[in-house]
């Protein structure tokens, strides 16, 4: 059960968040997301629970990683 879907926080209410998944909205639990959440944050959702806040800058970093891996500068480089 690894299926995790990222979505954007639209509203916070106690231990729950209304999250938008590409136009589909669902309420998820935020008890164990392990971070403070604000409207506009992205979270990874699994089985009705947010399990991680996905920092915005990590998206760009990810694309950088893809680029680096596709054309490494030197041998011995690790991610």
């Amino acid at each position, binding site marked *: *059960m690894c*299926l*995790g*879907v990222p979505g954007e926080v639209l509203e916070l209410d106690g231990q729950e968040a209304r999250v*938008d*998944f*590409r*136009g*589909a*909205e*669902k309420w998820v639990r935020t008890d164990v997301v392990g971070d403070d959440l604000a409207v506009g944050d992205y979270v990874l*959702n*699994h*089985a009705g629970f947010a399990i991680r806040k996905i920092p915005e800058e990590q998206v760009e970093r990810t694309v950088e990683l893809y680029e680096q891996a596709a054309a490494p500068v030197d041998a011995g480089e690790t991610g």
Partner: protein
Amino acid sequence: MTAGDVDLDKADDEVITAAHGAGTDRTRELLDRVVADRFGDPPSGGVGLAAMDDGAVVPDATGGRATVVTTDSHVATPMEFPGGDIGRLAACGTINDLAAMGATDPVALTSAVVIEAGTPVAVVDRVLESMAEACEAAGCTVRSGDTKVMGSGEVDGLVLTTTGVGRIERGSQLTTGGLSPGDRLLVTGPVGDHGIALLAAREGFDFETPLESDVRPVDGLVAAAREAGTVTAATDPTRGGLATAVNEMADAGGVGVRVDERAVPVDDATAGAAEVLGMDPLAVACEGRMVLAVDAADAAAVRDRLRAEPGGERTAVVGRAVADHPGDVVLDTGLGERYLTVPSGEQRPRIC
């Protein structure tokens, strides 16, 4: 022994299960044995039951015309859904099946309904009104029917069976398998809307952009396509969606099919909901679309003509028939290739 584990030799113990109704290999086995073997011979020059096509074609004994006939039972749950209801679904299903056989001018429909006692009259009224509206849009009407009532719990809501009749020039029918290598495959609009909308409604998922069934008659689109170029095969992608439709074409035609996933139109809302539900829009029902195989030389003209028709605005060329891997459909995902198979009967959302 597990559920559904049936030894076909033990006919006495065999019972029909939900799996038989799900449109899978099991369904086909049953149909072959119980139905096709019994009624399967095709009429001379026509299309019979064994072909398992969208309908049958029975040529007149003399003169140059033929009758096209098709029938379907509908048990939609819920009976009324975003974008339509079981009445509209039944009428369009039948009109579209006639169109898929080349009969784009339906003559008449019949409607037999079995109603569960306790169903509000207002619901029956609405459902039949929807049916009438859909027929009117296709230029036909319900000419005959039957009504039965069963006790509460003896049947679930409404079972609606519609039969459609059309007339064509002898030999001018369209079949599911009429395509040849090189023919292009077109779909007349975005796929998966009906299946995803119903699944979301049934599971109680709330989506910001309301999802609606695409249910509509597409007889006009088939007629327009045939005016614009040579259509070699047609089938409507209902249960099992585009994936099933192109597989049926590949099997019936003895050809391979290649589909370009990125060319298949999918509505944003449907795509988003499908991702959340863990479903594939290519594998769930459309009720207002047609898949057409078209002579390569005419593909662009047919596409452009359909895009100018109401209901066909997002027609796209999505693939082609090939001589390789007959019976198999290969999907180019943009990142690689895989087979596009007929979905197994049960379509359930994955957890997310």
